[in-house]
């Protein structure tokens, strides 16, 4: 599972000697080392900081507070000064590693902070950072660490989430931006308050790369507008998390993103080829930095990714760990709503007139007639005005307007022309323009 599997037994053997009673296993960490553990499926693990200072992905731990991690969590507790923690519950692996790139990340943060200071002094905008790399190199974690460090120094950075597969802000299949005002909760992650979310509709950018680039530009535009009037956000800059797709169009999308956001720094995680290509394809004033991935990064299987996606959607409806929210189920008549899918099937080039390129089909809104196949699909509720006329103007409006929420179709009755939806809010729907996602969610549990 991990790259450092051989070390595991030795570390575990060493640390288990320092265990304290039945309450849990005690681990004593030296300075600049980290404790990595994974929670077994169907189990929970409690973490408690006994002495010293420690942090999880940049968020500091409170002493003598029990943190609970659900099944499948992969956690690294890092300490700069040394500490001792205790773990109770079944862990799949738990070991201490000295071999962590946290110092490099800290240095990166220091450099970014230097840039923010200069920006503050010169009355300019702060650093915009794009984090790229193949899948499973810890991009999201690096983003989280950097954002946490920045916000702990009183900055207000923005997290731009372009990873449509594993969004850390909203449900999968969306692209979003979130202003970070406090460090991430150790268990839950960043508090999601009023994020800006755009509908993409699929878990990989490859299904509609035009739309992906378009939404990237839209996000960049909104972010720039915000920077223009909010000095703090401007100085804080942004940290952009990207997809793990770094070949072909995926790579082009990265270059597009860099130019849309006008990034200053690109952090390339663990791939020299990507580093060299970006150095070649981005203008010289963009700093491209190659960084190693952490040894603790675990490769996730397809199933595991799907599970996290499901979990993320469930979290949207039922709250963190399925306890805090109570969603509503109600019927929506077909006639009340307009459902669209973004992207029309493309026309062969031979059918086009001379000198035309078909770039617009992917950004086209195709009306979807509701039917049985709608069942279990996730629908985004577009915030576009209902009374807007259907036309070219409006279709652009729907594409570029953010999403105000999501519903899941749980049942379709074609006879009665009614579908039942799961919604976070009671009826009626706030808006009546719905966009369909490829993503399905089956509401079990």
């Amino acid at each position, binding site marked *: 599972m991990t790259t450092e599997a051989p070390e595991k037994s030795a570390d575990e053997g060493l640390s288990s000697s320092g265990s304290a009673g039945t309450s849990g296993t005690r681990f004593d960490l030296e300075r*600049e080392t980290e404790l990595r553990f994974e929670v077994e499926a169907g189990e929970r693990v409690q973490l408690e900081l006994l002495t010293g*200072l420690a942090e999880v992905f*940049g968020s500091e731990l409170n002493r003598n507070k029990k943190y609970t991690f659900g099944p499948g969590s992969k956690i690294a507790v890092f300490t700069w000064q040394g500490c001792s923690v205790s773990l109770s519950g079944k862990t799949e692996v738990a070991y201490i590693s000295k071999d962590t*790139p946290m*110092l*490099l990340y*800290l*240095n*990166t*943060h*220091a*450099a970014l*902070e*230097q*840039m923010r200071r200069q920006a503050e002094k010169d009355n*300019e905008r702060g*650093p915009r950072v794009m984090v790229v790399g*193949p899948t499973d190199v810890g991009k999201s974690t690096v983003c989280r660490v950097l954002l946490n*460090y920045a916000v702990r*120094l009183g900055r207000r950075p923005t997290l731009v989430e372009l990873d449509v597969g594993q969004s850390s802000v909203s449900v999968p299949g969306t692209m979003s931006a979130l202003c970070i005002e406090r460090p991430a909760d150790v268990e839950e992650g960043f508090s999601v308050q009023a994020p800006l979310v755009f509908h993409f509709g699929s878990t990989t950018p490859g299904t509609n790369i035009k739309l992906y680039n378009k939404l990237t530009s839209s996000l960049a535009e909104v972010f720039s507008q915000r*920077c*223009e*009037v*909010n*000095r*703090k956000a*401007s100085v804080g800059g942004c940290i952009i998390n990207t997809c793990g797709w770094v*070949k*072909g169009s995926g790579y082009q999308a990265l270059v597009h993103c860099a130019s849309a956001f*006008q990034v200053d720094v690109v952090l390339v995680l*663990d*791939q*020299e*080829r990507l*580093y060299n290509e970006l*150095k*070649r*394809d*981005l*203008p*010289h*004033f963009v*700093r*491209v*930095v*190659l*960084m*190693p991935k952490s040894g603790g990064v675990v490769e996730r299987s397809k199933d595991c990714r799907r599970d996290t996606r499901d979990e993320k959607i469930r979290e949207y409806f039922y709250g963190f760990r399925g306890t805090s929210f109570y969603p509503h189920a109600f019927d929506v008549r077909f006639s009340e709503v307009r459902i669209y899918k973004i992207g029309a099937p493309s*026309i062969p080039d031979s059918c*086009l*007139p001379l*000198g*035309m390129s*078909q770039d*617009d089909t992917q950004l086209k*809104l195709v*009306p979807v007639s509701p039917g049985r196949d709608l069942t279990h699909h996730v629908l985004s509720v577009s915030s576009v005005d209902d009374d807007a006329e*259907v*036309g*070219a103007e409006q279709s652009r409006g729907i594409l570029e307007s953010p999403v105000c929420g999501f519903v899941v179709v749980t049942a379709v009755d074609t006879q009665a022309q009614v579908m039942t939806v799961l919604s976070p809010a009671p009826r009626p729907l706030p808006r009546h323009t719905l966009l369909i996602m490829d993503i399905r969610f089956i509401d079990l549990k």
Partner: protein
Amino acid sequence: MADRETATDPLKHRVYEELLSPSELFEARSRSHKIPVRGQKDFLPSGSEQQTTRLQQSLDEHWTLLTEERVERLGNLVKAVWIPDERLVELQSPAGKFWQTMGFSERGKQYLLPEEALYLMECGNVQVFYRDLPLSIQEGYERFLSRETVTLHQYQVFGHLKRLGYVVNRFDSSSVPSTYERQLNLPASSWDKQRKQLKRKRSGSPVSSDKQNTAPEEKMTTEDQSEELVKTDPRLEEPMQSADASDRTWWMEAGVQPSPAQAPSAAPRWDFSSISFPDLGSRRSGSVSLASPDPSLLPGALEVGGCDLSLWLSRVNVKQEKLSRRDRERQRDRDRYHRDINSDREVRHCRNWAEYLQLLEDRRRRRQKDRPVHLWEQEVTPLTQPGQCTSHRELLDQISIIKSSSWSEGVSSLSSSDQWKISFDIYQPDTVAEFKKSHPGKPYTRMCVCSFDGPVPDLNAMKLLSFQSGDVPVTFAVVDHGDISFYCFKDFKLPTDAY
């Protein structure tokens, strides 16, 4: 038709020369009452003998018809007096059956409008006296028809429709509910009531009093509206201009000063020689250790030591990725044709993204000139680009050059013209039985009289007329030397395909 009683009295025959003898009466009675039919194409002289004789014959028939003495029953004739000052005919004896659909009473007296009186004269129902002498039909035409009352054309239309059995009233523009009333959707009865009161007054002549009374009013309203438009226009524009600014104010936070314009600096904004990133890529050959960062830059004022990068350098993933054959080919192609953009001197001159993007935009524009000039780069371009529309309706919308407009659209901004006036309200013959002058109800159509010599009404005129008429259709009666043809323009929507 002569009265037998009067005719049998031989004494009176001498006194009144106009009284007829039984034989004459009988002749008059058995006379054909048919109006000779005119051939359809007699107006086109071919120069042939045959046609000339036929035409002459037809003309003669008409003449004899006109010169023929009318024989009327004295008791059936209603006596009336022509009052030229008021341009009205006042009845002296009780009115006949025609009173149901014609005439009006005022101050206890019964009056006929000139065209009504003339028509009744022609029908032999009324005898009109002027200065105590009866008027002949010819005199009636001369005295009653004028610019102030009704014109000959209007009378011809009036007579024609009357003979066909229609009820014809002068058009009174005040009887039509205004657009405002229509917007309010007032019940029909309320404006009927209003009309009833107005009916007490005599309705104005379709030619003159319309012009005097209602036209200025109309003008006023249109002027008002256009003024209104002018007034609102700048108001509309103002928010548009400020929209950009106000749009963004919601981002504004208190105590935030607007960001300054980017000062052009000679060097790139960030001096990366002083800002050190732990970049493994560029340190391949250079120094391999990092200095410890300034604690003030770190959260919780951490103090950490330097960092030896050599360990990490050895660990960076340099192994070849697994690429599919296609990916490898694509990459090879790219490597072959794709040079480092930074070896380009123009790119090296760019100091920030704005300049770089400008450069790319310029280059793209230069490249785009390759598009077929005759199609896309000239003044005339296709109305729509393939792939822009999702539905037929949208496509039809885009390729329609003349936008369809409805009658009621933009009428308020039109200036009313004097040339086109609605003359009559027409009610269908089958409603005559229950027709009430005080409560005429909604007309079947409204008639606008014009001549073949005049121009065809333009869109402007038609819009105005239909606006005046409200929800009642307007028919154009076109008079061609006594022949009347009827035309109407109908508002309809071109069929469009919805999906």
